[in-house]
Protein backbone atom coordinates (compact mmCIF):
# COMPACT_ATOMS: atom_id res chain seq x y z
CA UNK A 1 0.00 0.00 0.00
CA UNK A 2 1.37 3.38 -0.94
CA UNK A 3 1.46 5.90 1.90
CA UNK A 4 1.74 9.62 1.58
CA UNK A 5 5.19 10.79 2.50
CA UNK A 6 6.85 14.14 2.58
CA UNK A 7 8.85 13.84 -0.64
CA UNK A 8 10.18 17.34 -0.50
CA UNK A 9 12.06 16.99 2.79
CA UNK A 10 13.74 13.71 1.84
CA UNK A 11 12.60 11.97 5.02
CA UNK A 12 13.05 8.23 5.23
CA UNK A 13 10.46 6.45 3.10
CA UNK A 14 11.44 2.91 3.99
CA UNK A 15 7.98 1.82 5.02
CA UNK A 16 6.28 3.17 1.94
CA UNK A 17 5.66 1.17 -1.19
CA UNK A 18 5.30 2.15 -4.81
CA UNK A 19 2.69 0.56 -7.06
CA UNK A 20 4.67 -0.32 -10.17
CA UNK A 21 3.23 -1.80 -13.37
CA UNK A 22 5.92 -3.29 -15.59
CA UNK A 23 5.26 -4.50 -19.13
CA UNK A 24 6.12 -8.17 -19.55
CA UNK A 25 6.14 -10.02 -22.83
CA UNK A 26 7.94 -10.38 -26.12
CA UNK A 27 7.50 -9.65 -29.82
CA UNK A 28 4.31 -11.70 -29.92
CA UNK A 29 2.59 -9.65 -27.22
CA UNK A 30 2.29 -9.13 -23.50
CA UNK A 31 0.81 -6.98 -20.78
CA UNK A 32 1.46 -5.13 -17.55
CA UNK A 33 2.34 -6.97 -14.34
CA UNK A 34 1.92 -5.26 -10.96
CA UNK A 35 4.69 -5.10 -8.35
CA UNK A 36 5.06 -3.40 -4.97
CA UNK A 37 8.44 -1.84 -4.52
CA UNK A 38 9.77 -0.25 -1.29
CA UNK A 39 10.17 3.49 -1.73
CA UNK A 40 13.57 4.96 -1.01
CA UNK A 41 15.16 8.37 -1.02
CA UNK A 42 16.63 9.52 -4.33
CA UNK A 43 15.16 6.46 -6.04
CA UNK A 44 15.31 6.36 -9.81
CA UNK A 45 12.99 4.46 -12.14
CA UNK A 46 15.95 2.23 -13.01
CA UNK A 47 16.39 1.50 -9.28
CA UNK A 48 12.77 0.40 -9.17
CA UNK A 49 13.16 -1.92 -12.16
CA UNK A 50 16.41 -3.32 -10.73
CA UNK A 51 14.72 -3.95 -7.37
CA UNK A 52 11.97 -5.96 -9.05
CA UNK A 53 14.51 -8.01 -11.00
CA UNK A 54 16.67 -8.65 -7.94
CA UNK A 55 13.90 -9.30 -5.40
CA UNK A 56 10.69 -10.29 -7.15
CA UNK A 57 11.37 -11.84 -10.54
CA UNK A 58 14.89 -12.56 -11.81
CA UNK A 59 13.51 -13.26 -15.30
CA UNK A 60 12.63 -9.60 -15.82
CA UNK A 61 14.68 -8.37 -18.79
CA UNK A 62 15.87 -4.79 -19.18
CA UNK A 63 18.94 -2.99 -20.39
CA UNK A 64 21.28 -0.62 -18.56
CA UNK A 65 25.00 0.05 -18.25
CA UNK A 66 26.43 3.27 -16.83
CA UNK A 67 23.58 4.41 -14.54
CA UNK A 68 24.78 8.01 -14.81
CA UNK A 69 23.13 9.20 -18.04
CA UNK A 70 26.06 8.67 -20.36
CA UNK A 71 25.56 5.38 -22.18
CA UNK A 72 21.99 5.73 -23.46
CA UNK A 73 21.06 2.12 -22.66
CA UNK A 74 18.25 2.39 -20.13
CA UNK A 75 15.58 4.43 -21.91
CA UNK A 76 12.03 3.15 -21.37
CA UNK A 77 8.47 4.42 -21.51
CA UNK A 78 7.62 5.75 -18.04
CA UNK A 79 3.93 6.53 -17.64
CA UNK A 80 3.76 6.52 -21.44
CA UNK A 81 6.60 9.02 -21.84
CA UNK A 82 10.08 8.07 -23.09
CA UNK A 83 12.71 8.78 -20.43
CA UNK A 84 16.24 7.87 -19.41
CA UNK A 85 15.35 5.79 -16.38
CA UNK A 86 18.70 6.09 -14.59
CA UNK A 87 18.31 9.85 -14.29
CA UNK A 88 14.56 9.95 -13.68
CA UNK A 89 13.52 10.19 -10.03
CA UNK A 90 10.44 8.14 -9.29
CA UNK A 91 8.97 10.90 -7.15
CA UNK A 92 8.89 13.19 -10.18
CA UNK A 93 6.88 10.80 -12.35
CA UNK A 94 4.43 9.22 -9.90
CA UNK A 95 0.86 9.64 -11.09
CA UNK A 96 -1.94 8.79 -8.69
CA UNK A 97 0.69 7.09 -6.54
CA UNK A 98 1.54 4.71 -9.38
CA UNK A 99 4.11 4.39 -12.13
CA UNK A 100 4.10 2.27 -15.29
CA UNK A 101 7.26 1.15 -17.07
CA UNK A 102 7.17 -0.20 -20.62
CA UNK A 103 9.62 -0.85 -23.47
CA UNK A 104 10.51 2.03 -25.77
CA UNK A 105 7.92 2.94 -28.39
CA UNK A 106 8.62 2.59 -32.13
CA UNK A 107 11.09 -0.28 -31.67
CA UNK A 108 10.47 -4.04 -31.75
CA UNK A 109 10.42 -5.68 -28.32
CA UNK A 110 12.90 -8.45 -27.61
CA UNK A 111 11.64 -9.26 -24.12
CA UNK A 112 9.99 -7.25 -21.35
CA UNK A 113 11.69 -3.84 -21.23
CA UNK A 114 14.47 -4.63 -23.70
CA UNK A 115 13.88 -3.43 -27.26
CA UNK A 116 15.76 -4.30 -30.42
CA UNK A 117 17.80 -1.18 -31.21
CA UNK A 118 18.93 -2.41 -34.64
CA UNK A 119 16.40 -0.36 -36.67
CA UNK A 120 17.46 2.75 -34.74
CA UNK A 121 21.18 2.31 -35.44
CA UNK A 122 20.63 1.04 -38.99
CA UNK A 123 19.01 4.41 -39.71
CA UNK A 124 22.08 6.25 -38.40
CA UNK A 125 24.08 4.48 -41.10
CA UNK A 126 21.37 5.12 -43.69
CA UNK A 127 21.45 8.84 -42.84
CA UNK A 128 25.23 8.81 -43.51
CA UNK A 129 25.73 9.38 -39.79
CA UNK A 130 29.23 7.96 -39.96
CA UNK A 131 32.55 9.76 -40.27
CA UNK A 132 33.66 10.53 -43.82
CA UNK A 133 37.44 11.03 -43.61
CA UNK A 134 38.92 14.07 -45.31
CA UNK A 135 42.57 13.16 -44.73
CA UNK A 136 44.88 10.21 -44.25
CA UNK A 137 46.79 9.54 -41.04
CA UNK A 138 49.88 11.07 -42.65
CA UNK A 139 48.25 14.47 -43.17
CA UNK A 140 48.36 17.21 -40.54
CA UNK A 141 45.33 17.42 -38.31
CA UNK A 142 42.55 19.65 -39.65
CA UNK A 143 42.42 22.74 -37.46
CA UNK A 144 38.97 23.36 -35.97
CA UNK A 145 37.99 26.92 -35.15
CA UNK A 146 35.79 26.59 -32.06
CA UNK A 147 34.15 29.94 -32.72
CA UNK A 148 33.18 29.30 -36.35
CA UNK A 149 29.46 29.24 -37.15
CA UNK A 150 29.56 25.65 -38.40
CA UNK A 151 31.45 24.41 -35.32
CA UNK A 152 28.98 26.15 -33.01
CA UNK A 153 26.15 24.45 -34.91
CA UNK A 154 27.87 21.06 -34.72
CA UNK A 155 28.46 21.53 -30.99
CA UNK A 156 24.71 21.72 -30.37
CA UNK A 157 24.28 18.07 -31.32
CA UNK A 158 27.40 16.29 -30.10
CA UNK A 159 26.07 15.43 -26.65
CA UNK A 160 23.62 12.88 -28.10
CA UNK A 161 23.96 9.60 -26.16
CA UNK A 162 21.98 7.48 -28.69
CA UNK A 163 19.34 6.64 -26.09
CA UNK A 164 16.50 6.59 -28.66
CA UNK A 165 14.19 8.67 -26.46
CA UNK A 166 13.60 11.09 -29.36
CA UNK A 167 12.97 8.17 -31.72
CA UNK A 168 10.40 6.72 -29.31
CA UNK A 169 8.77 10.14 -28.89
CA UNK A 170 8.40 10.79 -32.64
CA UNK A 171 4.90 10.35 -34.07
CA UNK A 172 6.28 10.55 -37.61
CA UNK A 173 8.39 7.45 -36.95
CA UNK A 174 5.22 5.71 -35.73
CA UNK A 175 3.33 6.56 -38.91
CA UNK A 176 6.18 6.18 -41.38
CA UNK A 177 8.45 3.16 -40.88
CA UNK A 178 10.98 4.45 -43.42
CA UNK A 179 11.53 7.77 -41.65
CA UNK A 180 15.11 8.01 -40.40
CA UNK A 181 14.10 9.70 -37.16
CA UNK A 182 15.43 12.64 -35.15
CA UNK A 183 18.61 11.09 -33.72
CA UNK A 184 19.99 9.88 -37.04
CA UNK A 185 19.15 13.16 -38.74
CA UNK A 186 20.69 15.20 -35.95
CA UNK A 187 23.84 13.11 -36.28
CA UNK A 188 23.86 13.78 -40.02
CA UNK A 189 23.49 17.53 -39.37
CA UNK A 190 26.33 17.46 -36.83
CA UNK A 191 28.66 15.77 -39.31
CA UNK A 192 27.52 18.09 -42.09
CA UNK A 193 28.82 20.98 -39.99
CA UNK A 194 32.01 19.22 -38.92
CA UNK A 195 35.19 20.65 -40.48
CA UNK A 196 36.77 17.18 -40.25
CA UNK A 197 34.03 15.47 -42.23
CA UNK A 198 34.31 15.31 -46.01
CA UNK A 199 30.89 13.85 -46.74
CA UNK A 200 28.68 16.93 -47.01
CA UNK A 201 27.09 15.99 -50.32
CA UNK A 202 26.87 12.33 -49.31
CA UNK A 203 24.97 13.40 -46.19
CA UNK A 204 22.60 15.66 -48.12
CA UNK A 205 21.88 12.88 -50.61
CA UNK A 206 21.30 10.40 -47.78
CA UNK A 207 18.81 12.61 -45.94
CA UNK A 208 16.94 13.71 -49.09
CA UNK A 209 15.54 10.29 -49.96
CA UNK A 210 12.24 8.62 -49.22
CA UNK A 211 12.53 8.44 -45.43
CA UNK A 212 14.62 11.59 -45.13
CA UNK A 213 14.42 14.87 -43.28
CA UNK A 214 11.55 16.18 -45.43
CA UNK A 215 9.13 13.82 -43.72
CA UNK A 216 9.51 15.67 -40.41
CA UNK A 217 6.34 17.55 -39.41
CA UNK A 218 8.19 19.70 -36.86
CA UNK A 219 5.93 18.48 -34.06
CA UNK A 220 8.88 18.82 -31.70
CA UNK A 221 8.39 15.73 -29.53
CA UNK A 222 12.09 14.92 -30.02
CA UNK A 223 13.17 18.26 -28.65
CA UNK A 224 10.61 18.15 -25.85
CA UNK A 225 11.71 14.76 -24.55
CA UNK A 226 15.48 14.74 -25.25
CA UNK A 227 17.03 14.07 -21.83
CA UNK A 228 20.14 16.05 -22.76
CA UNK A 229 18.01 19.00 -23.86
CA UNK A 230 19.27 18.85 -27.43
CA UNK A 231 17.20 20.17 -30.31
CA UNK A 232 16.90 17.57 -33.09
CA UNK A 233 14.00 19.50 -34.63
CA UNK A 234 16.33 22.45 -35.25
CA UNK A 235 18.95 20.10 -36.72
CA UNK A 236 16.33 18.65 -39.09
CA UNK A 237 15.28 22.18 -40.09
CA UNK A 238 18.96 22.82 -40.87
CA UNK A 239 19.06 19.76 -43.11
CA UNK A 240 15.88 20.91 -44.87
CA UNK A 241 17.49 24.29 -45.57
CA UNK A 242 20.77 22.74 -46.72
CA UNK A 243 19.05 20.23 -49.02
CA UNK A 244 16.80 22.94 -50.46
CA UNK A 245 19.84 25.16 -51.17
CA UNK A 246 21.59 22.18 -52.76
CA UNK A 247 18.45 21.44 -54.81
CA UNK A 248 18.52 24.90 -56.41
CA UNK A 249 22.30 24.93 -56.87
CA UNK A 250 22.16 21.67 -58.80
CA UNK A 251 19.66 23.19 -61.21
CA UNK A 252 21.71 26.25 -62.05
Amino acid at each position, binding site marked *: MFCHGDWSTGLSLEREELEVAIWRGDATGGGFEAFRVPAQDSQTVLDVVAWVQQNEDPTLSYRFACRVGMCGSCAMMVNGVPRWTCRTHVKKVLKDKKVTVAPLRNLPVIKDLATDMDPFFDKWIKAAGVHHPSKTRDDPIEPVDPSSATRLEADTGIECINCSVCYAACD*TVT*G*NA*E*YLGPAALQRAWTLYNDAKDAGQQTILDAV*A*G*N*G*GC*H*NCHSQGSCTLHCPNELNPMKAIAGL*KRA*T*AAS*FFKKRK
Partner: protein
Amino acid sequence: MLDMRLYMLQRITALIMAPLTLGHIAVMIYAIQDGLTAAEILGRTQGSLAWFLFYGLFVVAVSIHAAIGLRVILHETLGVKGAALRLFTWGVGLVLLAMGGRAVWAVTVL
Protein backbone atom coordinates in the same frame (compact mmCIF):
# COMPACT_ATOMS: atom_id res chain seq x y z
CA MET B 1 7.61 8.45 -48.77
CA LEU B 2 8.17 12.19 -49.08
CA ASP B 3 11.39 12.79 -50.96
CA MET B 4 13.15 15.99 -51.94
CA ARG B 5 11.17 16.42 -55.16
CA LEU B 6 7.75 16.11 -53.54
CA TYR B 7 8.86 18.29 -50.62
CA MET B 8 10.03 21.09 -52.92
CA LEU B 9 6.90 20.80 -55.07
CA GLN B 10 4.71 21.17 -52.00
CA ARG B 11 6.69 24.12 -50.61
CA ILE B 12 6.89 25.95 -53.93
CA THR B 13 3.17 25.51 -54.60
CA ALA B 14 2.51 26.82 -51.08
CA LEU B 15 4.56 29.91 -51.92
CA ILE B 16 2.50 30.38 -55.08
CA MET B 17 -0.83 29.86 -53.30
CA ALA B 18 -0.18 32.31 -50.47
CA PRO B 19 -0.31 35.57 -52.48
CA LEU B 20 -3.00 34.21 -54.81
CA THR B 21 -5.22 33.35 -51.82
CA LEU B 22 -4.77 36.85 -50.40
CA GLY B 23 -5.58 38.27 -53.86
CA HIS B 24 -8.68 36.08 -54.11
CA ILE B 25 -9.96 37.21 -50.68
CA ALA B 26 -9.24 40.85 -51.50
CA VAL B 27 -11.16 40.57 -54.78
CA MET B 28 -14.11 38.89 -53.06
CA ILE B 29 -14.34 41.66 -50.49
CA TYR B 30 -14.00 44.30 -53.21
CA ALA B 31 -16.58 42.63 -55.46
CA ILE B 32 -19.36 42.53 -52.87
CA GLN B 33 -18.91 46.13 -51.72
CA ASP B 34 -21.17 47.56 -54.45
CA GLY B 35 -23.41 44.51 -54.68
CA LEU B 36 -22.11 43.17 -57.98
CA THR B 37 -24.29 40.42 -59.46
CA ALA B 38 -22.92 37.14 -60.73
CA ALA B 39 -23.56 38.31 -64.26
CA GLU B 40 -21.60 41.51 -63.69
CA ILE B 41 -18.68 39.57 -62.18
CA LEU B 42 -18.68 37.10 -65.09
CA GLY B 43 -18.80 40.05 -67.46
CA ARG B 44 -15.48 41.21 -66.07
CA THR B 45 -13.76 37.84 -65.75
CA GLN B 46 -14.82 36.11 -68.98
CA GLY B 47 -12.37 36.68 -71.76
CA SER B 48 -9.79 38.02 -69.33
CA LEU B 49 -6.35 36.49 -69.80
CA ALA B 50 -5.20 37.95 -66.46
CA TRP B 51 -7.97 36.22 -64.48
CA PHE B 52 -7.41 33.00 -66.44
CA LEU B 53 -3.74 33.02 -65.46
CA PHE B 54 -4.53 34.07 -61.86
CA TYR B 55 -7.03 31.29 -61.16
CA GLY B 56 -5.45 28.81 -63.56
CA LEU B 57 -2.16 29.03 -61.69
CA PHE B 58 -4.02 28.76 -58.39
CA VAL B 59 -5.80 25.57 -59.48
CA VAL B 60 -2.56 23.96 -60.68
CA ALA B 61 -0.81 24.86 -57.40
CA VAL B 62 -3.72 23.59 -55.29
CA SER B 63 -3.89 20.30 -57.21
CA ILE B 64 -0.20 19.57 -56.65
CA HIS B 65 -0.11 20.83 -53.05
CA ALA B 66 -3.23 19.00 -51.87
CA ALA B 67 -2.35 15.75 -53.61
CA ILE B 68 1.03 15.60 -51.85
CA GLY B 69 -0.46 16.61 -48.49
CA LEU B 70 -3.21 13.98 -48.67
CA ARG B 71 -0.61 11.43 -49.78
CA VAL B 72 1.31 12.00 -46.54
CA ILE B 73 -1.83 11.76 -44.41
CA LEU B 74 -2.97 8.56 -46.13
CA HIS B 75 0.46 6.93 -45.73
CA GLU B 76 0.98 7.90 -42.09
CA THR B 77 -2.60 7.19 -41.01
CA LEU B 78 -3.53 4.07 -42.97
CA GLY B 79 -0.10 2.79 -44.03
CA VAL B 80 -0.91 2.88 -47.75
CA LYS B 81 2.26 2.75 -49.86
CA GLY B 82 3.77 1.78 -53.20
CA ALA B 83 1.64 1.76 -56.35
CA ALA B 84 -1.59 2.34 -54.41
CA LEU B 85 -0.14 5.50 -52.86
CA ARG B 86 1.11 6.76 -56.24
CA LEU B 87 -2.28 6.06 -57.79
CA PHE B 88 -4.01 7.95 -54.99
CA THR B 89 -1.66 10.93 -55.31
CA TRP B 90 -2.11 11.20 -59.07
CA GLY B 91 -5.86 10.58 -58.73
CA VAL B 92 -6.39 13.37 -56.22
CA GLY B 93 -4.20 15.74 -58.23
CA LEU B 94 -5.99 15.04 -61.52
CA VAL B 95 -9.49 15.23 -60.01
CA LEU B 96 -8.71 18.59 -58.38
CA LEU B 97 -7.13 19.80 -61.61
CA ALA B 98 -10.18 18.74 -63.64
CA MET B 99 -12.71 20.26 -61.24
CA GLY B 100 -10.75 23.49 -60.76
CA GLY B 101 -9.89 23.71 -64.44
CA ARG B 102 -13.55 23.37 -65.38
CA ALA B 103 -14.45 26.23 -63.02
CA VAL B 104 -11.65 28.45 -64.32
CA TRP B 105 -12.68 27.70 -67.90
CA ALA B 106 -16.31 28.61 -67.15
CA VAL B 107 -15.48 31.83 -65.32
CA THR B 108 -12.69 33.21 -67.49
CA VAL B 109 -13.02 31.72 -70.98
CA LEU B 110 -16.59 30.90 -71.95
